């Protein structure tokens, strides 16, 4: 009997869905649905990988049960007993051995074919995509939106990568110093950020969300503290974010957080003697440093210090007092030492800088943090 084409397709889709759903059920039973789980995809690339993992997993499980079962049976059934003598001396059986040479070969062929299909689908860089350049630094992620800033300049930000839902993005990946690795488990697999080489990857977020991400190639002392977030917004919210982000911020008047004065903070930030602007920039101000992350609209960042702490005024103040203690080895900590801070910044200075940085905000509705 010939199965009609559409029925076969339906059957295949059904099987695949069943494989995935049952895997997902097993996964959540053992707590495999964490906020960075690869089995809880929210993007097209990660979803296709998950769909590939499912059949490989079930095939692997079947092989596991059969082979280990046979092993355990053999050990129990043929263990030495009191009356055991020398068993029949069997040296082999070419036919059986050829058969079990072919069996793993068949599995390898099936896995390869499934693999190549997903590989082909995931290698596509769609023509109509949003381009973002991601640069790995020791130990933070920089994001550039080419031609999206004021006057067609690139729009620069760090640690939070905003993308629209339902539209493919092409990420151009670069490494500034050593090899880093760009990994957003719920959206896509990893791609290296290698100095001297440009890599590309593409994915589409399928649901709005805040996705946890990290550097996953060992990149030196604070490798563990190099994280970022991908914030996928519905298309209209993303447009809102982009239109605000390209206009340089204005320091708010009046008292800010921690009783600081944002206007004074802005002046301090740009003051060469206070060192901030040697490394950091804020668009539309005299602060034009390029070594550290661009801090324009810092107030809207979800985290600070390369994705390791919630962005609160208290954490920022703590960071400014002694960055080297919170993130060992980082460049800022080598300049802004506690001794230097004591000699060059008053408590009020720090409060003002915090108030200034936290005052620069973009108003968009964030999706609920991803579970």
């Amino acid at each position, binding site marked *: 009997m010939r199965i009609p084409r559409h029925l076969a397709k339906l059957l295949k889709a059904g099987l695949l869905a069943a494989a995935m759903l049952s895997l997902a059920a097993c996964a959540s039973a053992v707590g495999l649905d964490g906020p960075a789980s690869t089995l809880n995809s929210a993007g097209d690339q990660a979803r296709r990988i998950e769909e590939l993992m499912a059949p490989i997993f079930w095939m692997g499980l079947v092989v596991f049960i059969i082979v280990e079962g046979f092993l355990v049976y053999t050990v129990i059934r043929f263990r030495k007993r009191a009356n055991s003598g020398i*068993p029949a001396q069997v040296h082999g059986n070419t036919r059986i051995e050829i058969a079990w*040479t072919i069996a793993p070969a068949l599995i390898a062929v099936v896995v390869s074919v499934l693999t190549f299909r997903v590989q082909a689908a995931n290698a596509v860089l769609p023509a109509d995509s949003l381009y973002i350049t991601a640069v790995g630094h020791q130990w933070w992620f920089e994001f550039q939106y080419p031609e999206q800033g004021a006057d067609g300049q690139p729009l620069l930000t760090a640690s939070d990568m905003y993308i629209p839902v339902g539209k493919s993005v092409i990420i151009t990946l670069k490494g500034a110093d050593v090899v880093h690795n760009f990994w957003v488990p719920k959206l896509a697999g990893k791609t290296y950020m290698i100095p001297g080489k440009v890599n590309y990857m593409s994915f589409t977020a399928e649901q709005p969300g805040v996705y946890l991400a990290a550097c996953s190639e060992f990149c030196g002392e604070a490798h563990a503290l190099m994280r970022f977030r991908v914030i996928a917004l519905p298309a209209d919210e993303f447009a809102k974010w982009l239109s605000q982000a390209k206009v340089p911020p204005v320091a708010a008047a009046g008292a800010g957080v921690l009783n600081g004065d944002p206007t004074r903070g802005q002046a301090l930030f740009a003051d060469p003697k206070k060192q901030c602007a040697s490394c950091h920039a804020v668009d539309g101000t005299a602060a034009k440093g390029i070594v550290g992350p661009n801090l324009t609209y810092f107030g809207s960042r979800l985290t600070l210090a390369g994705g390791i702490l919630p962005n609160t005024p208290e954490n920022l103040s703590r960071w400014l007092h002694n960055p080297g203690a919170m993130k060992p080895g980082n460049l800022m900590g080598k300049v802004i030492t506690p001794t230097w801070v004591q000699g060059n910044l008053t408590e009020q200075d720090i409060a003002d800088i915090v108030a200034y940085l936290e005052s620069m905000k973009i108003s968009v509705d964030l999706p609920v943090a991803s579970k």
Partner: protein
Amino acid sequence: MAVIERPHGGVATPQAPVSKEYMGWESWLTTVDHKKIGIIYMVAAFIFFLIGGIEALLMRMQLGTPNNTFLSPDVYNQMMTMHGTTMVFLVVMPFNVGLANYIVPLMIGARDMAFPRLNALSVWLFLFGGLMLYFSFMAGGAPAMGWFAYAPLTMKQFSPTFGVDYWIIGLLLTGVASIAGALNFVVTILNMRAPGMSINRMPLFVWMTLITAFLLVFAFPSLTAGQIALFFDRHFETRFFNPAQGGDAILWMHLFWFFGHPEVYILILPTMGIISEVLSTFSRKPIFGYAFVAYSGVSIGFLGFLVWSHHMFAVGLGPLANAFFAAASMLIAIPTGVKIFNWIATMYLGTIDLKTPMYYGIAFVAMFIIGGISGITLASPPVNLQQTDSYYVVAHFHYVLFGGAIFGIFAGLYYWFPKFTGRMYNELLGKIQFWLTFISFNVTFFPMHITGTNGMPRRIYTYEAGMGWDLYNLISTIGSFAMAVGVLVLVWNAITSVRNGAIAPNDPWDGASLEWAVPSPPPAHNFDKTPIVYSRRPLWDIKYPDLDAAHEIGTRAISRRERMEQEMAKMGEQLGEDHIHLPSQTYNPLIVAFGLLVAGFGAIYIATPFAFIASLIGLFIMGVGIVGWVRDSHKDSPYLVSH
């Protein structure tokens, strides 16, 4: 001990000068006996195993709870780098080499390795290389760039301490040891087999050692070349790997993994050989499908050179390159699957005697199946991109290298313990150690599949709470400490058994290969008379001459006894006498190795004039050693005279 007569009748052999005999501890420093060298290898590797284990425990302490501050990131990174480097270069490799050093000449009916002095040089270079690597802790800090040492993190700018230099020079010394050792094995196995032991009658452990030796010879130079180029980058302003100066970071990855993947088989193939011996002996059956097992080892060796880029799927080499390396990696599933089926079939219908080595042999197969299956997902590039550099990989390769290689080594250690020491180990303690290790191994490493799938990257010294990683990390940490208890039981068992264990007979397991034909431990000259081999199981030919007619595929049905008599008649005349020549003890390999060690220290601090002079002194010491070596080599061992 049997008296060895040096026949002087017939053709008169001129009496060679006899060298001094060293006794006591000096007999170890001057030894060229493959058995003593094997023991030095194994004891040193075991001590490094304890050190690498302590490093692992410190890491597990740190990772037991989120946001822990037990270790600073720099110390953690040093532990991570040293644990990997130690376990690969200073534990599994030298332990396998030590086992093979001891057992292979016995198995093939030889008196020693082909180049006994080179063998001594290898062991001292390995030991000095390892000690040099560890000296870095006292010289400003151990390397902290991962055992894979990706450029440009290894450049002076990012790794300013001398840790990387100690790593380079230390591993260069062990690398020279490995290549010299590998050539020694190739020559020994190809040339020194007892009469009648054709290639297809060699025990499978010898087969796997031969394949491993070839892998070493072809794979190690890639690492050595890369390390020398890296050393030049760091000290002489060359630009091989630093992209900031026009170098290529990916070139290092290729050089490293072209060595690094065959290295995996260098670690696992010898233990596959051990398992083949153990499963066969304790099932009292020959290995099922000898040719399939041997040739699948050969094909794993070949394929091992075609898959290195599966460590680099995320590098961005392009989908076509990734597809090629994926297909090649999948192919390895075939010979690996064949081996597993053949091992199980060896036990099937057998009489399985569940002694401790057999427990470890069975556990090897059981754990290797899991490591093999998790390897299939890693061979698929899209899935790999989610799993690489995550804890899933850590789980995978520990199933292969601990559940595989280390379990195989434990199997071999218990199996040959009576031969090495002349004493039986304690069976009860052996089984306690097995169950402790087997259970806690799974408790430690199985949860890592889950943390990795839950998105936990590798090589992080700390992590946030609430990621779904907390509980599983805690379980892993608990498991790792239970495993440490298991290792202590092994140490206790070994020490007490060496002292008070029951005296071991020549052949405690009813073995089939030639090492069981000689006393435990064997005399320095191994065999009183060179054995003559008629089949794959020479000792069973003697013990059970009528058991197994026509067992060799493709031969006509004649009884073994008949066959033996025929071949004996053929060979008898060719082997009229047994002239035993043993090489003399000598300090010279140790002196050469020491010279290289001094020169290596000088190289690390090459920028200072004092270090430059030290290098020259080291090379001079090496020269003295070589001259002494050449002048010594015609001397005979006093062993023959004094016994």
